[in-house]
């Protein structure tokens, strides 16, 4: 019957299950569900090469952002520095391992795995997704994408070291370092990468 016709032109709202007819959209416009205003789809614009460039820069920034201290504290002649990892370990050593794991996952592991996963996905798309193991690996990576991007909280971490700097500057001198700069840049590059990345579009590579 007209089953094939329906499959290609109708999309279902993920929040309220309303059937909506797909239309071509101009760029930078999002289609919203007419009933519940959930974002449905936008123009499939994501350049693989552009994303690859952003992804490699983000991976390069990831190393200094985690190796160098993000904050440096001078108090009565003694100097203390802390990387993101140190912060997580400090609370974990004091027995608050749930807090420590939350910090570690949201600010180090989450972003790191997210970037590696996107990098692998881009390489797989570039290789053409011809063999079956490539397709199954690609599917597996895409399935974890939603979770990984939820676990990545770089933007919150950037605000939080600004808040800490203000709070601590009350009784000590606070300095920013290479780590702070790298971390902020990592956040910005990842932000642009996530804006460019469209999960719908990445899934559609499997269709053809």
């Amino acid at each position, binding site marked *: 019957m007209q089953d094939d016709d329906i499959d290609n032109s109708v999309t279902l709202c993920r929040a309220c299950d*309303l059937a909506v007819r797909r239309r071509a959209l101009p760029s930078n416009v999002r289609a919203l569900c007419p009933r*519940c205003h959930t974002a449905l789809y936008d123009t499939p614009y994501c350049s693989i090469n552009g994303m690859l460039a952003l992804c490699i820069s983000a991976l390069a920034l990831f190393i200094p952002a985690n190796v160098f201290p993000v904050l440096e504290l001078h108090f009565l002649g003694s100097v203390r520095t802390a990387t993101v990892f140190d912060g997580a370990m*400090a609370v974990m050593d004091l027995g608050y391992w749930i807090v420590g794991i939350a910090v570690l996952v949201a600010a180090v592991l989450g972003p790191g795995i997210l970037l590696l996963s996107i990098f692998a996905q881009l390489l797989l798309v570039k290789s053409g997704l011809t063999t079956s193991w490539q397709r199954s690996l690609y599917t597996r990576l895409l399935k974890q994408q939603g979770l990984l991007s939820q676990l990545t909280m770089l933007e919150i971490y950037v605000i939080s070291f600004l*808040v800490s700097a203000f*709070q601590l500057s009350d009784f000590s001198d606070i300095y920013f370092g290479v780590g702070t700069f790298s971390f902020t840049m990592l956040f910005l590059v990842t932000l642009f990468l996530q804006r460019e990345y469209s999960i719908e579009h990445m899934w559609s590579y499997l*269709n053809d």
Partner: protein
Amino acid sequence: MTDRHQSTGKHIGLCHCSVCHQTNPIELSHCSRCGAENKPRDYSSLHKSWALLITAAILLIPANIYPITTLVNQGKVTHDTIFSGITHLVHSDMLPIAIIVFTASILVPWLKIIGLATYLIAISFDLPVSKRKLMAGFHFIEWIGRWSMLDLFVISLTVALVNMGQLLDAKPAPAATAFALVILLTQLAAKVLDTRLLWDRLDVKNDKH
């Protein structure tokens, strides 16, 4: 029976894959693209969401009444709860910071729990609340929920930097764990819920504005 007929996927025999957003025929048991199980509706998600939300609401009490940080300043020990930490900030003339911390650690968790509870009550008991407003609230909660992590990040950095023994030392306190669990559980409660249930159950007459 509506004046302006809006058909849902369930009526026309289609099913939305929650993992890869593929539109599948409803007869398929698994998605044709990603192989995840096809669920036209997930009725158990309502109970899961309730369970997670109630646990989070219970944990919100210790998170607010117990101290979240301990500060040793020249041998003098002070305990700070979330709220007293914010009042200190206000008294030391850091109003903008106080507003940020207040939003992230008090306003957002409470909003999330009250908002989600309203949403779940509306589904469970067919309350006559505008579905569109509920949905807008739900999207807002989903988006702002993660910002509660701010306080935990600040604590971890402060603890790592301020460790000069009896002179000056900051440590986390029991409320930190409770607060971390509140964030985790409320995020999960919002994530597991199948929002299509709201649109199935409520009467069409509530959808006018």
